[in-house]
């Protein structure tokens, strides 16, 4: 945004387009961070939803295109490309997940590709879409859904629910509770165990979402900082290396999220003796 101070520019770029009820009782978009915070829980980040749905639908359409015409003898180039990703995910699942569950592998594939696509939005120059949407009358526009904690927590809490569901399903309610109560120190230290295991259980979804959010938010912030503080004709000196480095980061973050999901769900399936 030309003409504003760097601080204003930066805070504008890390603000979601939030729809909800404003203080005066009317429904509409928040115009500032304070206003968005005042809307409370019953509000929605329209930009996060839009871009995450768009990337998710792109994933579904592209991968469905390959799977609908999947050929054994005469695969298309796109099918081979998809197969490459699928085989990578499948190999990871086979390595890290010993139980039998038809959900884990497609879940992992969705996580990997979807998060990768959402992260990929980070490589779109920081001003393109926000500026265009401002022309269209939308005050804020954050195009990287994974820089919104709601998006990362939405996924990690879903996985947390799966962890608890499969933990109870595989081990029984007693087994699941026993794992919380009788490890790692034995029955004599039940309260200590309970505290330790509960913390480690809750830490899993927390670390899962905050790691992704932190990495992506920091990466996006660096792009915004470069755009805010460096003259436009020199920005590429910093932005290009950072973008190239970021290609690695976004793939790695998607992979880590997928891998940890597999490991956590694997732990939920393991029956201890």
């Amino acid at each position, binding site marked *: 945004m030309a003409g504003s101070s760097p601080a204003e520019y930066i805070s504008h770029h890390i603000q979601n387009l939030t729809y909800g009820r404003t203080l005066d009782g009317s429904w509409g978009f928040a115009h500032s961070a304070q206003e968005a915070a005042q809307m409370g829980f019953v509000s929605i*980040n329209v930009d996060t939803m839009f871009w995450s749905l768009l990337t*998710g639908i792109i994933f579904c359409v592209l991968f469905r295109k390959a799977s609908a015409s999947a050929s054994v003898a005469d695969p298309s180039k796109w099918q081979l490309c998809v*197969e490459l990703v699928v085989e990578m995910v499948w190999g990871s699942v086979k390595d890290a997940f010993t139980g039998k569950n038809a959900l884990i592998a497609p879940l992992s594939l969705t996580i990997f590709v979807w998060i990768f696509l959402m992260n990929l939005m980070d490589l779109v120059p920081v001003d393109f879409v926000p500026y265009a949407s401002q022309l269209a009358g939308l005050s804020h526009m954050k195009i990287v859904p994974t820089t919104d904690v709601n998006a990362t*927590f939405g996924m990690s*809490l*879903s996985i947390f629910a799966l962890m608890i569901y499969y933990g109870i399903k595989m081990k029984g309610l007693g087994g699941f509770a026993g794992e919380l109560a009788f490890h790692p120190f034995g029955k004599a230290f039940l309260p200590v165990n309970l505290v330790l295991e509960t913390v480690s259980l809750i830490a899993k979804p927390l670390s899962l979402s905050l790691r992704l959010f932190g990495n992506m938010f920091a990466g996006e912030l660096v792009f915004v900082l470069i755009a805010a503080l460096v003259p436009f004709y020199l920005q590429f000196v910093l932005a290009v290396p950072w973008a190239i480095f970021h290609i690695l980061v976004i793939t790695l973050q998607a992979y880590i999220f997928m891998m940890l999901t597999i490991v956590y769900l694997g732990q939920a399936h393991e029956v201890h003796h």
Partner: protein
Amino acid sequence: MNMNLTLLGQAISFAIFVWFCMRYVWPPIIAALEAREAEIADGLASAEKGRHELANAEKHVADILSEGKNKAQDFVLQGQKRRDEILEKAKAEAMEEKAKILASATTEAEQERNQMLEVLRKQVGGLALQGAEQILMREVDEQSHRDVLDKLSSSL
């Protein structure tokens, strides 16, 4: 970074995308991958089988060749043996024939000699008679002396 309904929206979209992937994306791709894997395994197995069969066939050919060679040698040996036998047989037959011819020639010569002797005997008898007639200078009654003459000629 305030939490709001986006959380739920995200979770719901996540569930829908996972469901879609599980229902429509994952199975066909995996099926294709597995089918291709099986096909490759089959191909490798049949290549291995083909190689094995080729080795067998080569061995079989070598066997047939050596067998043929042996048989040919046998034939040559048999032929030589047979030739020797035939030669031997022919020789024996020839010897036999020779002996037969010799024998019959001897018999014939003997017979001829006997006939000649008979004729000569008769002629000598006649000559002796003529000689005796001339010595006696008179006609001898042939009839009356026939016995004498016959006795004479048979004693010759």
